[in-house]
């Protein structure tokens, strides 16, 4: 199959790759670009392990074609920390024990990153609804809710300062 040339922004840098038209974004990220932080859990966009931020929205990259990313902007878990400083959502998951096996975590973090921009002062119920596209088999979500609240508080404090 003839390959397509695509260029997009990934975690702040520009990447240029050749992909088949049928290649899924998650496979381009993981296999062509070696960014294995995002995971594949279901291939049907139910579990959210492959969630990436694409043009300012959370998307399940297992059901997006890589060619659709051409000219766009993609953020994955690898791009969350800045100059060695963890993003507040990362800090929150660590502080509140919001992860166990770690497999859902990259998708959770990327979703939480976008969710808190959509709703900077969520209630616990808002968080449960806002994160419901991401499944976790280990934690029972209670500490994930706390982790997102931790990040919300920290983000509000830094932005208010």
């Amino acid at each position, binding site marked *: 199959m003839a390959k397509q040339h695509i260029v997009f922004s990934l975690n702040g840098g520009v990447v240029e790759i050749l992909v088949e038209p049928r290649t899924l974004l998650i496979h381009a990220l993981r296999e062509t670009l070696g960014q294995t932080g995002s995971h594949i*859990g*279901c*291939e049907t966009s139910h579990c959210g392990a492959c969630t990436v931020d694409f043009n300012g929205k959370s998307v399940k990259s297992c059901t997006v074609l890589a060619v659709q990313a051409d000219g766009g902007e993609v953020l994955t878990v690898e791009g969350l920390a800045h100059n060695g400083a963890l993003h507040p959502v990362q800090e929150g*998951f660590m502080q509140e024990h919001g992860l*166990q096996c770690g497999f859902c975590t990259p998708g959770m973090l990327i979703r939480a990153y976008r969710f808190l921009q959509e709703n900077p002062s969520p209630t616990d119920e808002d968080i449960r609804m806002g994160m419901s*596209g991401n499944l*976790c*088999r280990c934690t029972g979500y209670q500490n994930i*809710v706390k982790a997102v609240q931790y990040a919300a508080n920290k983000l509000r404090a830094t932005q208010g300062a």
Partner: protein
Amino acid sequence: MATTAEYLEREQKLEGIGCARKRKEDPRFIQGKGHYVDDVHLPGMLFGAVVRSPHAHARIKSINKEKALALPGVRAVLTAEDLKPLKLHWMPTLAGDVQAVLADEKVCFQYQEVAMVIADDRYLAADGVDLVEVEYEPLPALVDPHHAMDADAPVIREDLVGKDEAGQGKRVHDNHIFRWEVGDKAATDRIFATADVTVKQAVLNPRVHPCPLETCGCVASFDKVRGELTVYITSQAPHVVRTVVSLLSGLPESKIRIISPDIGGGFGNKVGIYPGYVGAIVASIVFGRPVKWIESRIENLSTTAFARDYHMVGELAADKNGRIKALRVNVLADHGAFNAHAQPTKWPAGFFSICTGSYDIPVAYARVDGVYTNKAPGGVAYRCSFRVTEAVHLIERMIDILAQKLGIDKAEIRFRNFIKPEQFPYHSALGWDYDSGDYPTALKKVLEAVNYPALREEQAEKRTRGELMGIGICTFTEIVGAGPSKNCDILGVGMFDSCEIRVHPTGSAIARIGTITQGQGHQTTYAQIIATELGLPSEVIQVEEGDTNTAPYGLGTYGSRSTPVGGAATANAARKLRDKARKIAAHLLEVSADDLDWEIDRFKVKGVPGQEKTMKEIAWAAYNNVPPGMEMGLEAVEYYDPPNFTYPFGAYLCVLDIDRYTGETKVRRFYALDDCGTRINPMIIEGQIHGGLTEAYAVAMGQLIAFDAGGNLLSNSLMDYFLPTAVETPKWETDFTVTPSPHHPLGAKGVAESPHVGGIPCFTNAVNDAFAHLGVTQIDMPHTAFNVWKTIHELGLDNRA
């Protein structure tokens, strides 16, 4: 003398046993630096994909590979014919049976492995799968295990026809696998014949799947020049895999390296050895190149290791005060097309005989018959010790049913039957020796916390208005920490576990353990054990697992065995080091070893303030100044064979409300008290309990691997198989008591599976309780809104005009 403040500060610095320290593994995971099997990318790697049967039962008439092989990039199509010369078309199972690696002349379940396509990338492998042409002649499918032993039932395993044995004892029908009996049948029958009261109930634990978020997979890499095989694999038991691969391949174990890297959840799904692994290994040996095989979610739910499928009939005999006199249980166990369940080898029904539960039942008898059906093989412990969920479910339903018949409160009947604290160690009617427990205290604490009498009053009041409110209680006892080698082995290898610790000259250390974490946080908790035992900060203790080239042989992580067995090995290895350290300290301080006291992180000369050596100082001396005749260095290995199992327990209570028009269930409150003995990291324990309760909620309220009458699987994607999101998942309240295990070096019992084992019956008891006043004795799981709605309509409760 150290002041109390100094003493505490020193202790806190270690972040040892009892400290809710943050996890050491998290910085990697939150920055996308986890390393799971599918992240392994080796130069020249090929990909395998599996051709699967669309039929539940069919003869294979022909397989045509031509079109697939003609596709550029497809390297091979393996079938049973290709594996035959290597004698690898069938493989032994952990249960003494054999399983087809690739279907040999017929398929026995839908999605069974028929061929494996090896190609240059995963897309080409999938293309190749579509091009393999298989012609089938469908056969009648056997789906209902209750008809497996009918005279005219289709014979599933033609390879076993005429054999009266399939690896686990005598069988009486072509579709029969084994019969396992325990207890005193005659004495039990006698009590039932004369008892004041008896109850009898069919109780189902339906077929479910552990469904970890990461599916199963492997990367096999055979180096033809060195003759060495490396396999990265999603395995909860890498050493066992090495032994099995050696037995199958003929390669010496020393030339096989099995690596379980990060594992994205296991829950029992990753204990077994699957055809995909074998195919990838064979292909790698043939091509001399790495071969990756990763399951899709559909393949995961369809083929690798279901759990449960226990069709139980329980009976209790009691006096009129509700004191249980005997238990009788008959189970029909659906094992699918091959007997590949994962239990210790001599235990065809696992530890199901823990079914007398937390109650002092003088006489009992249990019988389990395993049968073949046209369904995927498996029968793993889904977040539980071996068949313990089924056992606890049975007794916890039966005691509720007995209470209902006698009109006794469901909490009260438990108090009347509990094994009393003073009866421990307690020998159960079915042969177990419970190590320690205090059941009444646990239940009492829960009832007080939720104000139980007020809940029952509220329920009575709601019932007068036709509203449905359920209160579920579960007071469970688990049996974990398999296990003593006198009882337990896997293929002849005793179920010990191991730890090797090396303390470096500057006082940091590395520990390697034979278990393997899948999210339980071993890198943190084992370091905490060593920190307390050795007086070195847990921060500088590195824990490694999962690489058979470096870790000592261990049996892996499942059945809550890491803390009871691996944790004990870790504590004992550390104690060996501390004994050596004591001798070095005595030498350095020029006193007898008996004159030294251990205090947190140092040895002190008795009665001589200031005369002391810290473990850090001793570590340095171990490499340059040891007593004459002593070996240099500071390292130790322990292989720990537990003297007994551990018996964690708990008391759970669930309050839920049911919408009598929609059948929707809302869990209002779930209070979980766990007693896992000594607590190593309370933060991690709480996290494990949250997770186990959520998986219990999933099983009780929605999970089902369902089939139609033709054996077609109806629930093999996350569209149809229930995994709760944050929205459905209830909020959890946790509590604890501490009753240490008397035989474990730390008094710890293990915890991660208790919430699953205890949670499922608690939810189902609550749903059943909501209907109990209407004479309902048993509604089987899963309690989906539709199923509950059906019950409501059968009972005529939706009386809207």
